[in-house]
Protein backbone atom coordinates (compact mmCIF):
# COMPACT_ATOMS: atom_id res chain seq x y z
CA UNK A 1 0.00 0.00 0.00
CA UNK A 2 2.64 2.49 1.09
CA UNK A 3 6.08 2.05 -0.33
CA UNK A 4 9.14 4.14 0.32
CA UNK A 5 11.71 3.52 -2.36
CA UNK A 6 15.22 4.79 -1.56
CA UNK A 7 13.97 8.00 -0.03
CA UNK A 8 16.37 10.77 0.92
CA UNK A 9 15.78 14.02 2.67
CA UNK A 10 18.49 16.61 2.69
CA UNK A 11 18.18 20.08 4.08
CA UNK A 12 20.24 22.99 2.95
CA UNK A 13 21.44 25.02 5.88
CA UNK A 14 23.49 28.16 6.26
CA UNK A 15 22.89 31.53 4.66
CA UNK A 16 23.18 30.32 1.08
CA UNK A 17 22.46 26.67 1.71
CA UNK A 18 26.16 26.02 1.68
CA UNK A 19 25.92 23.02 3.93
CA UNK A 20 23.83 19.94 3.46
CA UNK A 21 22.23 18.11 6.30
CA UNK A 22 20.95 14.66 5.54
CA UNK A 23 17.95 13.81 7.72
CA UNK A 24 16.91 10.66 5.91
CA UNK A 25 19.27 8.55 3.86
CA UNK A 26 18.24 5.96 1.36
CA UNK A 27 15.28 4.58 3.28
CA UNK A 28 13.08 1.91 1.70
CA UNK A 29 10.18 0.29 3.50
CA UNK A 30 6.61 -0.89 2.95
CA UNK A 31 3.44 -0.65 4.95
CA UNK A 32 0.77 -3.19 4.02
CA UNK A 33 -2.92 -2.88 4.87
CA UNK A 34 -3.62 -3.96 8.42
CA UNK A 35 0.03 -3.79 9.31
CA UNK A 36 1.64 -1.69 12.02
CA UNK A 37 5.16 -0.65 11.12
CA UNK A 38 6.99 1.05 13.93
CA UNK A 39 9.76 3.48 13.21
CA UNK A 40 11.94 3.40 16.27
CA UNK A 41 14.75 5.82 16.86
CA UNK A 42 16.11 8.51 19.07
CA UNK A 43 15.91 12.21 18.37
CA UNK A 44 17.63 13.08 15.14
CA UNK A 45 17.06 9.62 13.70
CA UNK A 46 14.81 10.97 10.93
CA UNK A 47 11.73 9.05 12.05
CA UNK A 48 9.52 12.11 12.24
CA UNK A 49 10.80 13.41 8.91
CA UNK A 50 9.75 10.17 7.24
CA UNK A 51 6.24 10.52 8.64
CA UNK A 52 6.06 14.11 7.49
CA UNK A 53 7.25 13.22 4.01
CA UNK A 54 4.52 10.61 3.70
CA UNK A 55 2.00 13.26 4.75
CA UNK A 56 3.58 15.65 2.24
CA UNK A 57 4.41 18.09 4.99
CA UNK A 58 8.00 17.84 3.83
CA UNK A 59 9.18 17.32 0.29
CA UNK A 60 11.22 14.31 -0.76
CA UNK A 61 14.75 15.14 -1.90
CA UNK A 62 15.37 11.91 -3.72
CA UNK A 63 13.56 8.63 -4.23
CA UNK A 64 9.85 7.92 -4.36
CA UNK A 65 7.04 7.57 -1.91
CA UNK A 66 4.25 5.57 -3.49
CA UNK A 67 0.76 5.04 -2.22
CA UNK A 68 -1.11 2.29 -4.02
CA UNK A 69 1.40 2.59 -6.80
CA UNK A 70 1.08 6.36 -7.30
CA UNK A 71 3.98 8.71 -6.64
CA UNK A 72 2.68 10.80 -3.77
CA UNK A 73 4.74 13.84 -4.73
CA UNK A 74 2.86 14.21 -8.01
CA UNK A 75 -0.56 14.54 -6.41
CA UNK A 76 -2.35 17.81 -6.99
CA UNK A 77 -5.81 19.20 -6.39
CA UNK A 78 -8.51 16.57 -6.33
CA UNK A 79 -6.05 13.70 -6.29
CA UNK A 80 -4.33 15.18 -3.28
CA UNK A 81 -7.63 15.64 -1.51
CA UNK A 82 -8.54 12.05 -2.07
CA UNK A 83 -5.06 11.08 -0.83
CA UNK A 84 -5.74 12.90 2.42
CA UNK A 85 -9.02 11.06 2.69
CA UNK A 86 -7.00 7.89 2.87
CA UNK A 87 -3.89 9.03 4.68
CA UNK A 88 -3.97 11.02 7.89
CA UNK A 89 -1.49 11.96 10.59
CA UNK A 90 -1.72 12.41 14.33
CA UNK A 91 1.06 14.03 16.32
CA UNK A 92 2.66 14.07 19.69
CA UNK A 93 1.02 17.08 21.30
CA UNK A 94 -2.74 16.76 20.96
CA UNK A 95 -3.25 20.29 22.28
CA UNK A 96 -1.37 21.78 19.36
CA UNK A 97 -3.76 20.14 16.91
CA UNK A 98 -6.65 22.06 18.42
CA UNK A 99 -7.28 25.75 18.36
CA UNK A 100 -7.74 26.66 22.03
CA UNK A 101 -10.33 29.32 21.32
CA UNK A 102 -12.65 27.02 19.38
CA UNK A 103 -14.55 24.03 20.59
CA UNK A 104 -12.76 20.75 20.13
CA UNK A 105 -15.34 19.25 17.80
CA UNK A 106 -14.47 21.93 15.29
CA UNK A 107 -11.95 19.42 13.94
CA UNK A 108 -14.91 17.40 12.73
CA UNK A 109 -16.51 20.41 11.10
CA UNK A 110 -13.31 21.04 9.19
CA UNK A 111 -13.42 17.52 7.82
CA UNK A 112 -17.01 18.02 6.86
CA UNK A 113 -16.33 21.24 5.07
CA UNK A 114 -13.43 19.74 3.15
CA UNK A 115 -14.71 16.31 2.32
CA UNK A 116 -18.37 15.98 3.11
CA UNK A 117 -19.86 19.29 2.08
CA UNK A 118 -23.08 17.70 0.80
CA UNK A 119 -23.81 15.38 3.69
CA UNK A 120 -27.10 16.07 5.52
CA UNK A 121 -26.88 16.96 9.20
CA UNK A 122 -28.46 13.81 10.53
CA UNK A 123 -26.21 11.53 8.51
CA UNK A 124 -23.21 13.50 9.56
CA UNK A 125 -24.03 13.35 13.26
CA UNK A 126 -24.56 9.64 12.94
CA UNK A 127 -21.14 9.32 11.38
CA UNK A 128 -19.54 11.32 14.18
CA UNK A 129 -21.22 9.26 16.84
CA UNK A 130 -20.10 6.05 15.16
CA UNK A 131 -16.53 7.33 14.95
CA UNK A 132 -16.56 8.41 18.58
CA UNK A 133 -17.92 5.02 19.57
CA UNK A 134 -15.06 3.41 17.66
CA UNK A 135 -12.55 5.32 19.75
CA UNK A 136 -14.61 4.65 22.88
CA UNK A 137 -15.52 8.23 23.61
CA UNK A 138 -18.86 9.26 25.03
CA UNK A 139 -20.22 11.98 22.71
CA UNK A 140 -21.81 13.73 25.68
CA UNK A 141 -18.41 14.05 27.31
CA UNK A 142 -16.45 15.44 24.41
CA UNK A 143 -18.79 17.32 22.11
CA UNK A 144 -19.30 21.03 22.73
CA UNK A 145 -16.22 21.21 24.91
CA UNK A 146 -13.14 23.37 24.63
CA UNK A 147 -9.79 21.61 24.27
CA UNK A 148 -8.67 22.62 27.77
CA UNK A 149 -11.70 20.88 29.23
CA UNK A 150 -10.59 17.54 27.79
CA UNK A 151 -7.71 15.28 28.71
CA UNK A 152 -4.83 14.52 26.41
CA UNK A 153 -6.11 10.99 25.91
CA UNK A 154 -9.56 12.24 24.95
CA UNK A 155 -8.10 14.66 22.45
CA UNK A 156 -5.91 12.05 20.83
CA UNK A 157 -8.91 9.81 20.54
CA UNK A 158 -10.90 12.57 18.95
CA UNK A 159 -8.14 12.98 16.39
CA UNK A 160 -8.27 9.28 15.68
CA UNK A 161 -12.05 9.51 15.38
CA UNK A 162 -11.57 12.36 12.96
CA UNK A 163 -9.34 10.14 10.86
CA UNK A 164 -11.92 7.37 11.01
CA UNK A 165 -14.56 9.69 9.53
CA UNK A 166 -12.49 9.63 6.38
CA UNK A 167 -12.30 5.84 5.98
CA UNK A 168 -8.57 6.04 6.15
CA UNK A 169 -6.25 3.40 4.84
CA UNK A 170 -3.06 4.63 6.44
CA UNK A 171 -2.47 6.43 9.70
CA UNK A 172 0.78 8.15 10.56
CA UNK A 173 0.97 8.16 14.35
CA UNK A 174 3.93 10.24 15.50
CA UNK A 175 4.69 9.76 19.20
CA UNK A 176 1.01 10.07 19.82
CA UNK A 177 1.04 8.69 23.33
CA UNK A 178 4.23 10.06 24.80
CA UNK A 179 2.34 12.90 26.44
CA UNK A 180 -0.34 10.70 27.86
CA UNK A 181 -0.53 9.20 31.31
CA UNK A 182 0.39 5.59 31.85
CA UNK A 183 -3.13 4.59 32.76
CA UNK A 184 -4.63 5.88 29.54
CA UNK A 185 -1.88 5.44 26.99
CA UNK A 186 -2.46 1.74 26.69
CA UNK A 187 -6.06 2.34 25.66
CA UNK A 188 -4.97 4.55 22.81
CA UNK A 189 -2.48 1.87 21.84
CA UNK A 190 -5.16 -0.76 21.81
CA UNK A 191 -7.30 1.50 19.73
CA UNK A 192 -4.57 1.76 17.12
CA UNK A 193 -4.18 -1.97 17.15
CA UNK A 194 -7.90 -2.40 16.61
CA UNK A 195 -7.72 -0.19 13.55
CA UNK A 196 -5.53 -2.73 11.86
CA UNK A 197 -8.33 -5.26 11.98
CA UNK A 198 -10.25 -2.97 9.65
CA UNK A 199 -7.35 -3.11 7.25
CA UNK A 200 -5.86 0.23 8.22
CA UNK A 201 -2.10 0.37 8.01
CA UNK A 202 -0.28 2.30 10.72
CA UNK A 203 3.11 3.92 10.55
CA UNK A 204 3.88 4.14 14.22
CA UNK A 205 6.67 6.56 15.04
CA UNK A 206 8.14 6.22 18.52
CA UNK A 207 11.27 6.28 20.59
CA UNK A 208 9.83 3.77 23.04
CA UNK A 209 10.81 0.24 22.13
CA UNK A 210 8.28 -1.28 24.46
CA UNK A 211 5.44 0.47 22.69
CA UNK A 212 6.77 -0.49 19.27
CA UNK A 213 7.13 -4.04 20.40
CA UNK A 214 3.61 -4.15 21.81
CA UNK A 215 1.91 -2.89 18.72
CA UNK A 216 3.82 -3.54 15.57
CA UNK A 217 4.17 -6.32 13.08
CA UNK A 218 7.27 -4.84 11.55
CA UNK A 219 9.98 -2.87 13.33
CA UNK A 220 12.33 -0.41 11.70
CA UNK A 221 15.21 0.88 13.78
CA UNK A 222 16.63 4.15 12.58
CA UNK A 223 19.79 5.89 13.52
CA UNK A 224 20.87 9.24 12.10
CA UNK A 225 18.54 8.91 9.15
CA UNK A 226 19.63 5.43 8.23
CA UNK A 227 17.87 2.10 8.79
CA UNK A 228 20.18 -0.03 10.85
CA UNK A 229 17.84 -2.94 11.29
CA UNK A 230 14.45 -3.90 10.02
CA UNK A 231 12.29 -6.94 10.20
CA UNK A 232 9.34 -8.69 11.74
CA UNK A 233 8.98 -7.34 15.26
CA UNK A 234 9.37 -10.66 17.02
CA UNK A 235 12.54 -11.42 15.11
CA UNK A 236 14.11 -8.02 15.69
CA UNK A 237 13.36 -8.03 19.39
CA UNK A 238 14.25 -11.65 19.97
CA UNK A 239 17.36 -11.63 17.87
CA UNK A 240 18.70 -8.07 17.43
CA UNK A 241 21.58 -8.06 14.99
CA UNK A 242 22.88 -4.52 15.07
CA UNK A 243 24.84 -3.26 18.07
CA UNK A 244 22.71 -0.13 18.08
CA UNK A 245 19.58 -2.23 18.40
CA UNK A 246 20.98 -4.07 21.37
CA UNK A 247 22.15 -0.80 22.86
CA UNK A 248 18.63 0.56 22.64
CA UNK A 249 17.15 -2.60 24.04
CA UNK A 250 19.60 -2.49 26.88
CA UNK A 251 18.60 1.05 27.78
CA UNK A 252 14.90 0.36 28.18
CA UNK A 253 13.87 0.26 31.81
CA UNK A 254 12.05 -3.00 32.53
CA UNK A 255 9.64 -3.57 35.33
CA UNK A 256 10.91 -6.89 36.51
CA UNK A 257 14.47 -6.90 35.32
CA UNK A 258 17.20 -4.50 36.36
CA UNK A 259 19.39 -2.96 33.72
CA UNK A 260 22.38 -4.97 34.86
CA UNK A 261 20.52 -8.21 34.23
CA UNK A 262 19.36 -7.12 30.78
CA UNK A 263 22.85 -5.98 29.89
CA UNK A 264 24.26 -9.31 30.85
CA UNK A 265 21.74 -11.16 28.70
CA UNK A 266 22.42 -8.92 25.74
CA UNK A 267 26.15 -9.25 26.20
CA UNK A 268 25.74 -13.01 25.91
CA UNK A 269 23.60 -12.50 22.83
CA UNK A 270 26.17 -10.16 21.25
CA UNK A 271 28.90 -12.64 21.94
CA UNK A 272 27.05 -15.23 19.90
CA UNK A 273 26.89 -12.84 16.94
CA UNK A 274 29.89 -11.93 14.93
CA UNK A 275 31.30 -8.40 15.03
CA UNK A 276 29.09 -7.35 12.14
CA UNK A 277 25.90 -9.05 10.98
CA UNK A 278 26.19 -7.39 7.59
CA UNK A 279 29.68 -8.69 7.09
CA UNK A 280 28.56 -12.30 6.93
CA UNK A 281 26.48 -11.53 3.85
CA UNK A 282 28.46 -8.75 2.21
CA UNK A 283 32.00 -9.46 3.33
CA UNK A 284 33.74 -7.22 0.84
CA UNK A 285 31.50 -4.33 1.53
CA UNK A 286 31.59 -4.25 5.32
CA UNK A 287 32.69 -0.88 6.63
CA UNK A 288 32.75 0.66 3.16
CA UNK A 289 30.72 3.69 2.35
CA UNK A 290 28.16 2.66 -0.29
CA UNK A 291 29.63 4.17 -3.46
CA UNK A 292 27.73 1.89 -5.72
CA UNK A 293 24.14 3.03 -5.92
CA UNK A 294 23.06 -0.54 -6.46
CA UNK A 295 24.97 -1.70 -3.44
CA UNK A 296 22.33 -2.64 -0.87
CA UNK A 297 22.66 -0.81 2.42
CA UNK A 298 21.06 -3.71 4.23
CA UNK A 299 21.83 -7.38 4.22
CA UNK A 300 19.21 -10.02 4.79
CA UNK A 301 20.30 -12.28 7.58
CA UNK A 302 17.12 -14.31 7.80
CA UNK A 303 13.88 -14.08 5.80
CA UNK A 304 12.28 -10.71 6.47
CA UNK A 305 15.05 -9.49 8.74
CA UNK A 306 17.71 -7.13 7.38
CA UNK A 307 20.57 -5.33 9.06
CA UNK A 308 23.02 -2.57 8.18
CA UNK A 309 26.76 -2.65 8.56
CA UNK A 310 27.96 -2.14 12.13
CA UNK A 311 31.08 -0.41 10.90
CA UNK A 312 29.37 1.79 8.44
CA UNK A 313 29.51 5.30 9.81
CA UNK A 314 28.32 7.28 6.80
CA UNK A 315 27.52 10.39 8.80
CA UNK A 316 30.67 10.41 10.88
Amino acid at each position, binding site marked *: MLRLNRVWKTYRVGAFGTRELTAVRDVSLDVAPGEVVSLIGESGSGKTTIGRMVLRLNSVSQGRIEFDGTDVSTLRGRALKSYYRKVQGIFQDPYSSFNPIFKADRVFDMVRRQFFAGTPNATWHGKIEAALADVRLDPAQVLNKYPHQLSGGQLQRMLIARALLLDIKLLIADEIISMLDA*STRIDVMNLLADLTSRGVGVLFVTHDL*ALGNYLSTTTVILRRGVIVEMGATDKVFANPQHPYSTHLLGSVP*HLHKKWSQVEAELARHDARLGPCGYHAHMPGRCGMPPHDPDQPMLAEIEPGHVVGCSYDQPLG
Partner: protein
Amino acid sequence: MSLQVDGLRVRYRTLRGDVHALDGVTFEVADGEIMGLVGESGCGKTTLAKSLIRLDGRMQYVDGVVELDGVKLPIDDQHAMNRFRFTQISFVPQYAMSALNPIRKIGKMIAELLESRGFDYKSIQPELERRLDLVGLPRDVLRRYPIELSGGMKQRTVVVVSTLLDPSLLVADEATSALDVSNQKAVAETLVEFRDRRFVRSVIVVTHDISLGYQIADTIMVMYAGKQAEKAPAEVIVNSPRHPYTQALMSSLPEVGVRYEDRRLAGIPGSPPPLLNPPSGCRFRDRCPLAFDQCAEEPPFVEIATGHSVACWKAA
Protein backbone atom coordinates in the same frame (compact mmCIF):
# COMPACT_ATOMS: atom_id res chain seq x y z
CA MET B 1 17.33 10.08 59.22
CA SER B 2 17.75 12.39 56.29
CA LEU B 3 14.34 13.74 55.35
CA GLN B 4 11.18 13.65 57.37
CA VAL B 5 7.91 14.96 55.97
CA ASP B 6 4.91 15.08 58.24
CA GLY B 7 1.38 15.95 57.17
CA LEU B 8 2.43 18.27 54.37
CA ARG B 9 -0.38 20.12 52.69
CA VAL B 10 0.06 22.51 49.81
CA ARG B 11 -2.58 24.05 47.64
CA TYR B 12 -2.66 26.02 44.44
CA ARG B 13 -4.65 29.16 44.27
CA THR B 14 -6.62 29.43 41.05
CA LEU B 15 -9.37 31.72 39.91
CA ARG B 16 -11.93 29.02 40.56
CA GLY B 17 -10.72 28.16 44.02
CA ASP B 18 -7.99 26.28 45.84
CA VAL B 19 -6.66 23.09 44.34
CA HIS B 20 -5.56 20.71 47.05
CA ALA B 21 -2.58 19.42 45.15
CA LEU B 22 -0.83 17.91 48.14
CA ASP B 23 -3.22 16.80 50.78
CA GLY B 24 -1.38 15.54 53.82
CA VAL B 25 1.72 13.57 52.95
CA THR B 26 3.90 11.86 55.52
CA PHE B 27 7.06 9.91 54.75
CA GLU B 28 10.74 9.60 55.44
CA VAL B 29 13.74 9.24 53.25
CA ALA B 30 16.63 7.57 54.93
CA ASP B 31 20.25 8.46 54.70
CA GLY B 32 21.59 6.94 51.50
CA GLU B 33 18.14 6.13 50.18
CA ILE B 34 16.89 6.78 46.70
CA MET B 35 13.15 7.11 46.78
CA GLY B 36 11.15 6.90 43.61
CA LEU B 37 8.09 9.10 43.66
CA VAL B 38 5.70 7.72 41.09
CA GLY B 39 2.32 8.78 39.85
CA GLU B 40 0.40 10.20 36.98
CA SER B 41 0.06 13.85 36.11
CA GLY B 42 -1.82 15.76 38.76
CA CYS B 43 -1.10 13.28 41.51
CA GLY B 44 0.91 15.79 43.50
CA LYS B 45 4.38 14.42 42.91
CA THR B 46 5.71 17.57 41.28
CA THR B 47 4.02 19.71 43.90
CA LEU B 48 5.77 17.70 46.55
CA ALA B 49 9.11 18.06 44.79
CA LYS B 50 8.67 21.79 44.44
CA SER B 51 7.51 22.20 48.02
CA LEU B 52 10.74 20.74 49.25
CA ILE B 53 12.86 23.18 47.28
CA ARG B 54 10.92 26.25 46.27
CA LEU B 55 7.22 27.00 46.22
CA ASP B 56 6.29 28.89 43.08
CA GLY B 57 4.16 31.99 43.17
CA ARG B 58 0.78 30.28 43.03
CA MET B 59 1.57 27.61 45.59
CA GLN B 60 0.55 28.08 49.17
CA TYR B 61 1.83 26.18 52.15
CA VAL B 62 -1.05 25.07 54.35
CA ASP B 63 0.19 22.69 56.92
CA GLY B 64 2.81 20.16 57.84
CA VAL B 65 6.44 19.91 58.81
CA VAL B 66 9.51 19.14 56.76
CA GLU B 67 12.71 18.31 58.59
CA LEU B 68 16.06 17.70 56.97
CA ASP B 69 18.71 16.12 59.15
CA GLY B 70 16.68 17.10 62.16
CA VAL B 71 16.38 20.75 61.14
CA LYS B 72 12.96 22.10 60.32
CA LEU B 73 12.90 23.62 56.83
CA PRO B 74 11.13 26.97 56.54
CA ILE B 75 9.49 25.92 53.30
CA ASP B 76 6.89 28.68 53.42
CA ASP B 77 9.53 31.35 53.72
CA GLN B 78 11.12 31.91 50.32
CA HIS B 79 13.91 33.95 51.79
CA ALA B 80 14.80 31.79 54.75
CA MET B 81 14.84 28.71 52.51
CA ASN B 82 17.67 30.17 50.48
CA ARG B 83 20.13 29.16 53.18
CA PHE B 84 19.27 25.49 52.63
CA ARG B 85 18.98 25.44 48.88
CA PHE B 86 21.88 24.08 46.92
CA THR B 87 23.89 23.39 50.07
CA GLN B 88 21.47 21.14 52.00
CA ILE B 89 18.78 20.38 49.49
CA SER B 90 19.17 20.59 45.78
CA PHE B 91 17.19 20.12 42.64
CA VAL B 92 17.42 18.67 39.16
CA PRO B 93 14.55 20.03 37.10
CA GLN B 94 12.64 18.42 34.31
CA TYR B 95 13.56 21.31 32.05
CA ALA B 96 17.28 20.67 32.07
CA MET B 97 17.39 21.59 28.37
CA SER B 98 16.61 25.16 29.28
CA ALA B 99 17.85 25.32 32.86
CA LEU B 100 21.14 26.90 31.91
CA ASN B 101 21.35 30.55 30.97
CA PRO B 102 21.68 30.38 27.18
CA ILE B 103 23.99 33.37 26.90
CA ARG B 104 26.44 32.48 29.66
CA LYS B 105 29.29 30.07 29.30
CA ILE B 106 28.52 27.21 31.62
CA GLY B 107 31.66 27.65 33.70
CA LYS B 108 31.02 31.32 34.12
CA MET B 109 27.44 30.70 35.16
CA ILE B 110 28.57 28.17 37.77
CA ALA B 111 31.17 30.60 39.05
CA GLU B 112 28.67 33.40 39.33
CA LEU B 113 26.18 31.15 41.05
CA LEU B 114 28.74 29.90 43.53
CA GLU B 115 30.11 33.33 44.24
CA SER B 116 26.64 34.73 44.73
CA ARG B 117 26.23 32.08 47.42
CA GLY B 118 29.52 33.02 49.01
CA PHE B 119 31.64 30.15 47.72
CA ASP B 120 34.96 30.39 46.04
CA TYR B 121 34.76 29.01 42.53
CA LYS B 122 38.48 28.53 42.18
CA SER B 123 38.63 26.16 45.11
CA ILE B 124 35.64 24.18 43.92
CA GLN B 125 36.70 24.00 40.29
CA PRO B 126 38.96 20.93 40.62
CA GLU B 127 36.13 18.95 42.17
CA LEU B 128 33.78 20.20 39.47
CA GLU B 129 36.13 19.00 36.78
CA ARG B 130 36.56 15.64 38.49
CA ARG B 131 32.82 15.15 38.50
CA LEU B 132 32.53 16.13 34.87
CA ASP B 133 35.10 13.44 34.11
CA LEU B 134 33.05 11.04 36.14
CA VAL B 135 29.88 11.59 34.14
CA GLY B 136 31.84 11.46 30.91
CA LEU B 137 31.66 15.11 30.03
CA PRO B 138 34.70 16.85 28.56
CA ARG B 139 36.04 19.56 30.83
CA ASP B 140 35.69 22.13 28.14
CA VAL B 141 31.91 22.13 28.55
CA LEU B 142 32.72 24.83 31.10
CA ARG B 143 33.94 27.00 28.27
CA ARG B 144 30.92 26.27 26.12
CA TYR B 145 27.49 27.73 25.87
CA PRO B 146 24.46 25.52 26.59
CA ILE B 147 23.48 25.51 22.92
CA GLU B 148 26.70 23.71 22.12
CA LEU B 149 25.69 20.72 24.25
CA SER B 150 23.33 17.90 23.39
CA GLY B 151 20.31 17.25 25.56
CA GLY B 152 21.93 14.40 27.42
CA MET B 153 25.04 16.46 28.05
CA LYS B 154 22.99 19.32 29.39
CA GLN B 155 21.09 17.03 31.69
CA ARG B 156 24.29 15.53 33.06
CA THR B 157 25.77 19.00 33.47
CA VAL B 158 22.77 20.05 35.49
CA VAL B 159 23.10 16.97 37.69
CA VAL B 160 26.74 17.83 38.32
CA VAL B 161 25.95 21.47 39.08
CA SER B 162 23.04 20.66 41.36
CA THR B 163 25.08 18.26 43.44
CA LEU B 164 28.28 20.25 43.49
CA LEU B 165 27.96 21.29 47.13
CA ASP B 166 27.19 17.74 48.31
CA PRO B 167 23.65 18.38 49.48
CA SER B 168 21.92 16.05 51.90
CA LEU B 169 18.95 15.67 49.62
CA LEU B 170 18.59 15.85 45.89
CA VAL B 171 15.17 16.16 44.33
CA ALA B 172 15.17 15.05 40.69
CA ASP B 173 11.88 16.05 39.13
CA GLU B 174 11.26 14.03 35.97
CA ALA B 175 14.92 14.54 35.32
CA THR B 176 15.05 12.03 32.51
CA SER B 177 11.62 12.14 30.91
CA ALA B 178 12.68 14.40 28.06
CA LEU B 179 15.61 12.20 27.13
CA ASP B 180 16.08 9.37 24.72
CA VAL B 181 16.32 5.92 26.22
CA SER B 182 20.10 5.71 26.15
CA ASN B 183 20.56 9.13 27.72
CA GLN B 184 17.86 8.37 30.19
CA LYS B 185 19.75 5.36 31.36
CA ALA B 186 23.01 7.27 31.60
CA VAL B 187 21.52 10.06 33.69
CA ALA B 188 19.61 7.67 35.90
CA GLU B 189 22.77 5.70 36.56
CA THR B 190 24.60 8.93 37.29
CA LEU B 191 22.14 9.65 40.06
CA VAL B 192 22.79 6.26 41.57
CA GLU B 193 26.51 6.66 41.26
CA PHE B 194 26.44 10.08 42.92
CA ARG B 195 24.53 8.62 45.79
CA ASP B 196 27.02 5.75 46.00
CA ARG B 197 29.87 8.23 46.09
CA ARG B 198 28.07 10.22 48.74
CA PHE B 199 27.94 13.36 46.57
CA VAL B 200 24.35 13.35 47.72
CA ARG B 201 23.16 11.43 50.69
CA SER B 202 19.62 10.77 49.59
CA VAL B 203 17.62 11.31 46.46
CA ILE B 204 13.98 11.66 45.59
CA VAL B 205 13.43 10.66 41.98
CA VAL B 206 10.13 11.99 40.73
CA THR B 207 8.94 10.07 37.68
CA HIS B 208 5.82 9.05 35.89
CA ASP B 209 7.57 5.88 34.77
CA ILE B 210 7.41 3.23 37.45
CA SER B 211 9.82 1.00 35.57
CA LEU B 212 12.45 3.69 35.64
CA GLY B 213 11.82 4.16 39.36
CA TYR B 214 12.30 0.43 39.79
CA GLN B 215 15.66 0.55 38.03
CA ILE B 216 17.28 3.04 40.37
CA ALA B 217 15.20 3.53 43.50
CA ASP B 218 15.52 1.72 46.79
CA THR B 219 11.98 2.55 47.76
CA ILE B 220 9.04 3.68 45.72
CA MET B 221 6.19 5.85 46.84
CA VAL B 222 3.10 5.85 44.64
CA MET B 223 0.87 8.88 44.82
CA TYR B 224 -2.67 9.30 43.65
CA ALA B 225 -4.78 12.46 43.61
CA GLY B 226 -2.68 14.40 46.12
CA LYS B 227 -2.31 11.56 48.56
CA GLN B 228 0.02 8.66 49.14
CA ALA B 229 -1.27 5.34 47.87
CA GLU B 230 1.59 3.01 48.67
CA LYS B 231 5.18 3.12 49.75
CA ALA B 232 7.52 0.17 49.89
CA PRO B 233 10.92 -1.08 48.83
CA ALA B 234 11.12 -1.07 45.03
CA GLU B 235 11.15 -4.84 44.72
CA VAL B 236 8.06 -5.10 46.88
CA ILE B 237 6.16 -2.48 44.93
CA VAL B 238 6.95 -4.16 41.64
CA ASN B 239 6.52 -7.72 42.68
CA SER B 240 3.80 -7.61 45.28
CA PRO B 241 1.94 -4.37 45.18
CA ARG B 242 -0.97 -4.12 47.55
CA HIS B 243 -2.77 -1.02 46.44
CA PRO B 244 -5.18 -1.65 43.56
CA TYR B 245 -3.95 1.51 41.88
CA THR B 246 -0.35 0.35 41.92
CA GLN B 247 -1.44 -2.98 40.54
CA ALA B 248 -3.51 -1.44 37.78
CA LEU B 249 -0.76 0.98 36.90
CA MET B 250 1.73 -1.80 36.38
CA SER B 251 -0.62 -4.03 34.50
CA SER B 252 -1.27 -1.24 32.02
CA LEU B 253 2.43 -0.82 31.31
CA PRO B 254 3.70 -2.44 28.12
CA GLU B 255 7.06 -4.00 28.63
CA VAL B 256 9.45 -5.18 26.01
CA GLY B 257 8.30 -8.63 25.20
CA VAL B 258 4.63 -7.97 25.73
CA ARG B 259 2.79 -7.99 22.44
CA TYR B 260 -0.68 -6.90 21.66
CA GLU B 261 -1.56 -10.13 19.95
CA ASP B 262 -0.30 -12.19 22.87
CA ARG B 263 -1.57 -10.24 25.82
CA ARG B 264 -3.85 -7.30 25.49
CA LEU B 265 -3.15 -4.84 28.29
CA ALA B 266 -5.83 -2.65 29.71
CA GLY B 267 -5.73 0.88 31.06
CA ILE B 268 -7.45 2.15 34.13
CA PRO B 269 -10.93 3.30 33.21
CA GLY B 270 -12.11 6.74 34.23
CA SER B 271 -9.96 9.63 35.32
CA PRO B 272 -8.65 10.98 38.65
CA PRO B 273 -11.06 13.09 40.74
CA PRO B 274 -10.79 16.86 40.48
CA LEU B 275 -8.68 18.32 43.27
CA LEU B 276 -10.60 21.56 43.36
CA ASN B 277 -13.22 19.90 45.57
CA PRO B 278 -11.92 16.40 46.17
CA PRO B 279 -14.49 13.79 47.17
CA SER B 280 -14.34 12.30 50.61
CA GLY B 281 -13.22 8.74 51.18
CA CYS B 282 -10.77 6.83 49.07
CA ARG B 283 -9.98 8.90 46.06
CA PHE B 284 -9.41 5.91 43.84
CA ARG B 285 -12.67 4.25 44.60
CA ASP B 286 -14.50 5.35 41.44
CA ARG B 287 -11.93 3.57 39.30
CA CYS B 288 -11.16 0.74 41.65
CA PRO B 289 -12.26 -2.79 40.75
CA LEU B 290 -12.18 -3.73 44.42
CA ALA B 291 -14.13 -0.80 45.80
CA PHE B 292 -16.69 -1.55 48.51
CA ASP B 293 -18.74 0.37 51.04
CA GLN B 294 -15.96 1.11 53.44
CA CYS B 295 -14.13 3.02 50.73
CA ALA B 296 -16.50 5.93 51.35
CA GLU B 297 -14.34 6.43 54.41
CA GLU B 298 -10.83 7.58 53.82
CA PRO B 299 -8.39 4.70 54.28
CA PRO B 300 -5.40 5.52 56.51
CA PHE B 301 -1.87 5.17 55.19
CA VAL B 302 -0.70 2.37 57.39
CA GLU B 303 2.35 0.20 57.54
CA ILE B 304 1.33 -3.35 56.73
CA ALA B 305 4.83 -4.76 56.76
CA THR B 306 8.22 -3.33 57.57
CA GLY B 307 8.75 -0.42 55.26
CA HIS B 308 5.57 -1.14 53.34
CA SER B 309 2.67 1.25 53.83
CA VAL B 310 -0.62 1.25 51.93
CA ALA B 311 -3.71 3.41 51.98
CA CYS B 312 -6.37 0.82 51.16
CA TRP B 313 -8.98 -0.94 53.23
CA LYS B 314 -8.52 -4.11 51.22
CA ALA B 315 -4.80 -4.18 51.83
CA ALA B 316 -4.92 -3.82 55.57
